[in-house]
């Protein structure tokens, strides 16, 4: 439909306003990450929207290099939290995607596990806080507290609903003719699944895995409860920096925030096409 000129002006004005609101918080953190300590909490007339003397000192600081301005010593550097975030999110994704994909295929093709759709929606519905007491007790019993593999296991379970529902809708959409042709050729059903269906689903699998990874990477609450020192993740580590005696380490925390924020934003843009499907449990497709 052709729109009028005033409408176009209004549209661009509204979108630009929305863009400003969207970007200011992000840009403020980016700017803070590159500010030297003197500009961190400058207020009033001294408040700078962009660093006057951009520096990498904040990044060097969180990786353990002491700088002249910062006399604080870190208990441990950001290296291990980054490793913890990566390992737990990656292996959590592996668990969720393996169990979820297999189960989705089982339900989509053979009608097995009819209870799973509702059970998994319920799993998603519960606030993690409301099931954490037994989980903390079980994890302590299994010696999984404060380990990245313990986090990976709970992440795998927490994001299983998304992996399952996403893959189920992808399988439901896939025409069965090719699989049926392979069956006629004498392939076993398992072979059809591993050699024919899965390779055809490479792109949807990758999108679903990225989606699940973003969710795992974004966690804060579970890591806060299940890790204490050795394997804290980036968000937990970032939050813990504030309790040091020199007050807020604005720049250092912003640098960590930036490190945490970049991967999911890039991945999210890469899988934009499937976001609606993922977020609505496949109820909507784009």
């Amino acid at each position, binding site marked *: 439909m052709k729109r009028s000129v005033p409408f176009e002006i209004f549209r661009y004005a509204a979108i630009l306003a929305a863009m400003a609101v969207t970007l200011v918080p992000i840009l403020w953190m980016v700017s803070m990450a590159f500010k030297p300590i003197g500009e961190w909490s400058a207020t009033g007339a001294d408040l700078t929207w962009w660093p006057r003397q951009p520096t990498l000192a904040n990044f060097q600081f969180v990786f353990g290099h002491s700088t002249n301005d910062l006399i604080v010593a870190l208990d441990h550097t950001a290296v291990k939290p980054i490793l913890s975030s990566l390992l737990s999110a990656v292996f959590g994704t592996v668990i969720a995607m393996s169990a979820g994909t297999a189960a989705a295929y089982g339900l989509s093709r*053979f009608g097995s596990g009819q209870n799973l759709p509702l*059970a998994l929606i319920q799993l998603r*519905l519960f606030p993690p806080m*409301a099931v954490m007491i037994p989980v903390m*007790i079980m994890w302590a019993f299994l010696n999984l507290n404060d380990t990245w593999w313990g986090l990976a296991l709970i992440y795998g379970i927490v994001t299983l609903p998304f992996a399952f529902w996403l893959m189920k809708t992808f399988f439901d959409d896939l025409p069965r003719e090719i699989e049926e042709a392979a069956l006629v050729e004498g392939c076993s059903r398992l072979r059809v699944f591993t050699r024919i269906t899965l390779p055809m689903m490479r792109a949807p699998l990758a999108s679903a895995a990225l989606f699940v990874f973003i969710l795992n990477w974004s966690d*804060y609450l579970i890591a806060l409860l299940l890790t204490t020192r050795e394997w804290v993740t980036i*968000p937990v580590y970032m939050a813990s920096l504030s309790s040091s005696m020199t007050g807020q380490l604005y720049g250092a925390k*912003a640098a960590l925030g930036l490190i945490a924020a970049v991967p*999911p934003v890039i991945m999210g843009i890469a899988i934009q096409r499937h976001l609606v499907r993922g*977020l609505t449990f496949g109820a909507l497709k784009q």
Partner: protein
Amino acid sequence: MSAVTATIAEDKMEARTKPATPNEGARLGFRLTLPAQILVLFISAFPLLMQLYISVTDWSPLSGIGWWNAWEMWNSFANYTDLAADTRFWSALQRTAIVMLVCVPAEFLLGLALATLFADDFPGKRIFYSILLMPMMVVPAVAGYMFFMLFQSGGPVNDILSRIVGGPVTIAWLSDPTLALIAVMVADIWQWTPLMFLILLAGLVGVPEDQMKAATLLGANAWQRFTTIVLPKMKTIIIIALAIRVIENFKIFDTLYIMTGGGPGVATETISVYIYKVTTQDLIWGYVAAIALAILIVLSIVAVYAMKRMAKGREVPV
């Protein structure tokens, strides 16, 4: 005639795809779903029984006995009667409801307005779209830290305000009970309006254009087209979008806890923050189990209802 041929063809197909052994498919299906079933059982059945058991005792990790011996601390449902009289719990619940009643409608209306602007093509649409979606991909804890910085009394929000009013503004956003709650809600709206926008836009482009054109020819204005064609077509999608946000908003923790820690005092203490504090500071896990179970039961009922809606939604061609 053609119908008969089709039936025969279907029968042939059935015959061809029949597995060599009759139950091969069923057995493979069972094996494929087994890992997921085990994980679900692992996280539901046993933990629920454990939670139920602990919830009728005074057990805490500091009580010096294993949780399986918690029966020694049996307190004959005192946790549940305590819960009914726990003003801090009820006010946390009330606060969670207030946050939800402000945030979800605000996100919905802003998202719908944005989606309307994006309904047809215009230059720059793709890049604007990608940028506007960014907040929902930012790690919530990091978003919390962003807004923690923004709302400092010497921070950028006050800087913008002071430029507008022309004098220094030093509002202590996060240390005032009311303002802190507003700041927390602003952060939630910033982060999740994009989700509403994304879902509603997906629904909006599914509204058939010929119907819109026909309505225009019949003299319907934009508002009439919106209320008589667009809204009814999008009903299910709107319900799904609202349901998702209501569910997620009820759990609100990360951004809020990083920004205010539930404070000042208990001014921004929502249900998740309250449970977190009782779990980690007061350590009365028997009581936490009782709160958690009460919430789980209520939410389970909601789940069944939401599930029915979702099933309906899938029939809508989008």
